[in-house]
C-alpha cells in the first residue's frame, strides 16, 4: 500500500512528548485526580454488586471518620499501614524492590513473641523496648537476605522478597501449629505475651495504643533522614542512578543493604505493633493465605509507598487514606452488603490510575493533525 493511502485510513494519531517537570501543584492535582477517578471506577464496581454507590460511599467514609469510635479504629489501622508504607518507601527510594514487608512483619512478630512470652517477669519499660528492638532486628535480618543475594549474586529482589513472605508464613504456621502452640487454646496460636509487653492504650476503652506514636515518630525520622542526612542523600542518589552514584564514590552495595535493613526493620516493628497492640498471641495462617497477624498490611505497604510518591508526608497521607478504605469497607459491608475485599480491588485500581496520572505529569499528549 502506498504510504499516502495508509495515512488516510489510520486511526487518529497522538503524539507523546516529554515535558519539563511541572510545579508541585500540578503534580498534586494529578495525584488527587487519579484517586477521584479510581473512586469513580470503584462506584462502577459497587453498582455491579447491586448497590447505590452514593449510599455505599457514605457508609464507607462515615464508618471510617464519623465519630470517635470510627476515627480511633481508623487510626488503629493507620498505625501498621504507616509502618509498612514507610518500610517499603525506604526500600523503593533506592530501587530495592522490597515486596516482602508481609514476611518481615511476621519475622518481627515472631521474635518479639519469643521475648514477650519468655521474659514474663520484666517490667514494661524494659520489655516493650526489648520486644520492639527484637522485632526490628528480626525483620531487618529477613530483609537483609534478599539484599545480600542481590548485591552478591544479582538475584532479582522482587522474586526473592516475595517468596520470602511465603516461607515466613509457613514457618510461623509450623511454629504455632507445633512447638509454640498454646495447649489451652482452641486455635493454633502461641501463648499470650506478658501483659507488661502489651502496648498501653492511649485512650481508655479504645483500641489505639502507643504504637501510633512510635509509627509517627519513625515516619518523622524518615522525613529528617531524607531531607538532611548524608545517608538520605546517598539513598536518593543510588535510587536515581546506581552507576553514577558508584562512580561518584558512593558505596552502592552498602547503601542498598542498609536500606534493606532499615526497611525490613520498620516492617518488623509493624509486626511487633500488631502482636503487642492488637493480637497478643502469635497467630497462624489466615483464610486467604496471609498471616492472620500481618493481614496483608505488608502488601498494602507497597501500595501506600507508591501512592505517597515515596515521600514521608505523602506516605502518611496515603496510609491514612488506606486505613479509611479498609475500615470504611467493613462499615460499608455491614450497612450495604458490598463485599469487604472492595479495598483490595481499590488498591489495584488506584495504583493503575496513579500510573496514568504520573504519566500525565511527565508527558503531554497531542493530537497530530494532517
Amino acid at each position, binding site marked *: 500500500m502506498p504510504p499516502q493511502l*495508509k495515512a488516510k485510513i489510520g486511526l487518529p494519531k497522538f503524539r507523546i512528548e516529554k515535558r519539563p517537570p511541572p510545579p508541585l501543584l500540578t503534580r498534586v492535582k494529578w495525584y488527587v485526580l487519579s484517586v477521584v477517578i479510581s473512586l469513580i471506577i470503584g462506584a462502577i464496581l459497587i453498582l455491579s454488586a447491586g448497590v447505590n454507590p452514593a449510599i455505599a460511599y457514605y457508609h464507607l467514609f462515615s464508618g471510617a471518620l464519623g465519630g470517635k469510635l470510627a476515627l480511633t479504629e481508623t487510626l488503629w489501622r493507620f498505625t501498621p499501614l504507616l509502618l509498612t508504607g514507610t518500610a517499603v518507601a525506604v526500600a523503593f527510594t533506592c530501587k530495592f524492590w522490597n515486596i516482602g514487608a508481609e514476611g518481615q512483619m511476621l519475622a518481627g512478630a515472631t521474635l518479639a513473641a519469643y521475648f514477650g512470652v519468655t521474659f514474663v517477669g520484666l517490667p514494661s519499660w524494659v520489655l516493650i523496648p526489648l520486644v520492639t528492638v527484637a522485632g526490628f532486628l528480626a525483620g531487618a535480618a529477613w530483609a537483609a537476605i534478599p539484599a545480600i543475594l542481590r548485591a552478591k549474586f544479582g538475584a532479582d529482589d522482587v522474586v526473592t522478597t516475595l517468596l520470602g513472605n511465603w516461607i515466613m508464613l509457613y514457618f510461623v504456621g509450623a511454629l504455632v501449629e507445633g512447638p509454640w502452640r498454646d495447649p489451652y487454646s482452641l486455635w493454633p496460636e502461641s501463648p499470650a505475651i506478658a501483659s507488661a509487653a502489651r502496648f498501653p492504650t492511649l485512650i481508655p476503652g479504645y483500641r489505639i495504643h502507643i504504637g501510633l506514636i512510635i509509627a509517627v515518630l519513625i515516619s518523622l525520622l524518615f522525613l529528617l533522614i531524607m531531607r538532611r542526612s548524608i545517608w538520605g542523600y546517598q539513598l536518593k542518589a543510588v535510587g536515581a542512578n546506581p552507576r553514577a552514584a558508584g562512580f561518584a*564514590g558512593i558505596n552502592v552495595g552498602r547503601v542498598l543493604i542498609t536500606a534493606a535493613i532499615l526497611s525490613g526493620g520498620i516492617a518488623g516493628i509493624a509486626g511487633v505493633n500488631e502482636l503487642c497492640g492488637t493480637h497478643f498471641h502469635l497467630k497462624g495462617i489466615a483464610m486467604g493465605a496471609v498471616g492472620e497477624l500481618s493481614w496483608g498490611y505488608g502488601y498494602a505497604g507497597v501500595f501506600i509507598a507508591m501512592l505517597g510518591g515515596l515521600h514521608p508526608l505523602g506516605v502518611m497521607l496515603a496510609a491514612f487514606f488506606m486505613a479509611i478504605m479498609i475500615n470504611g469497607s467493613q462499615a460499608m459491608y455491614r450497612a450495604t452488603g458490598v463485599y469487604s475485599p472492595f479495598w483490595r480491588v481499590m488498591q489495584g485500581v488506584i495504583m493503575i490510575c496513579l500510573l496514568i496520572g504520573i504519566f500525565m505529569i511527565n508527558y503531554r499528549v497531542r493530537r497530530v493533525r494532517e
Partner: protein
Amino acid sequence: MGLGETVKEMPIVVMKGITKRFPGVVANDNIDLEIRKGEIHALLGENGAGKTTLMNILYGLYTPDAGEIYVRGKRVTIRSPRDAVDLKIGMIHQHFVLVPPFTVTQNIILGMKFPRGILNLEEAEKKVAEISQKYGIKVDPHAQIWQLSVGEQQRVEILKALFRGAEILILDEPTAVLTPQETKELFKTLRSLAKAGCAIIFISHKLDEVMEISDRVTVLRNGKVVATKKTSATNKRELAKLMVGREVVFRLRKARAKIGRPALQVEDLHALSDRGLPALKGVSFSVHEGEILGIAGVSGNGQRELAEVIAGVRKATSGKVLIFGQDVTNRSPKEIIDLGVGRIPEDRLQMGLITDLTVAENLVSEVHEKFSDKFFFLPAGIFLDHAQINNYAEKLISEYKIVTPSRDALTKTLSGGNLQKLILARVLAQNPKILIASQPTRGLDVGATEYIRRKLLEQKKKGAAILLISEDLGEILMLSDRIAVIYEGKIMGILPAAKAKIEELGLMMAGTPLSKIRGGRK
C-alpha cells in the same frame, strides 16, 4: 568531477518548509532541501544544528510539525521507517542499530517477509553473499554482530540498506568511528554507489571530509539552512564561517608546562569487558605532571574499560595502576577520588551525572560528605549542611558559567554543553593532580568544545597530569604532548605529538604496532 555537476536531473528528494519542535527548542526551522540522483550531498553543521533531526524525519522516525516531503516528484507522508524503506530510502545511523546477539544475515533480513512467516536462513545467507559481492562490500554472513569490528558493523548497516533496495542513502557521521584508512575505503564505496545512481546524503561536521567527498553541500545552523553550495565553488574557510556564524580560529595555543615526576602509571593492565571478554590485554604507559597523554583509537578498543579501571569502577584482572608511585589497583572510586584523581567519564548521562537530582546535588556528589556539620547534639558526619552546599554550588555555577534556571533545577533539564560544564566544575573545583578525561567534547558545539579544551590546557599548566581519551584524532593532535594509540586492548605505540604523522596513527589505529611501521621503513 562529480555527477551532480554535469548532469541536470530532477531532484529525487525535496523537503519543503520542514519544522520540528522539541520541548524548549526548534530543532528544524522551516528547512528546504533538494537531493539529486547520483550526487553525494553533504549536510554540514555543528552538533545540535538539526542535521540528524532532519534526516530522522526523512526516515520516518520523527514526525515533522510542518512541511512537505516529495520523493521522485510525489508528495509523501513518511510515518515510520517501514514507509521510508518502501520509498527506497535507507539510513545508516551514527550509533548503529544492530542486534548484537544476531548474525549478520539475521540482522539484514530483520523485518522482511518470508513465505508463511517461516524463516529460511540458508537462502537468505546466499542472497546476502550475492549482494555483498555485487557492491564489493565484504562481510561474513554467519558472524554475530558483537564479534565484528566497528568498521565491519558499518558495512553490515550499508548492506542492510542496499538489501532493501535503497536508492537514497543517508549516512549520519559515518567516519566518526573509522580509522583514516577505513574512511578512504568507505569513500570509495560511496563514490561507486553514487555512480550507480544512488543519491547519498552525508551528514558531517568535519570540513575536510565534506570538501573531499561531496558534490554539493547544505549548511545548517541552529535549525536553519544558511546556504547550499556546490562544493567545487566554495572552500573550507567559507564553510566554517557559515557553520559557526563567525570566523573560526583553527588553532589553540598548546602551552608548554614543566614536565614533572610520573603521576599516573599503568603497568601491564588486563581487564574484562561487560561481556566478560578480554578488553585490556597488557596496557602500559605513564603520564607525568604537566603533560597531556592522548589515547587515540577507534571506539570499542578498550578505551572505556581503561578509563573505568583507573576510575575504580571496573576490576583489573591483573596488572597495576600507580598514583605517584602508590599502588591503587582495584581500589574503590572513593579512595581514587580522595587521592586527587579527577574523572570526566565518557557517558555523561549514565555515569557522570545523576540527572534526577538537582544541579547543586550533582556538584557535590563526589564530596558531599565534606559538607557536614553538627546537628543539635549529633556530631558532624551524619547530617548535611545545606547552606554550605548552596554557597559552593552558586560559586561553581557562576565560575564555570553553567546555564541553569537555578541551583535547585533538576540536572536533566540542562543542555549537553552545560552538563559537561557541570562535570568539569565538579572535578576541577577539587584541583585534581591527575585528570582522566574521556571523550570530553563529544557531541558538544564549537563554543562548549573550545571552553572545555581551554580548561584542560589550563589545568595542565597548573601541573596536572592529564590522560585524554578521545576518538577525535584532531582533538588528540591539538591537545596532547604525547600520543598513545590503542587497538584491541593493546597499546600500538607511544610517540611525541610533534612527530606524529596521520598515516602512521591511522595504521596504528588499524592494528599495526609502531615498531613494525618504523621497522618496515628501514
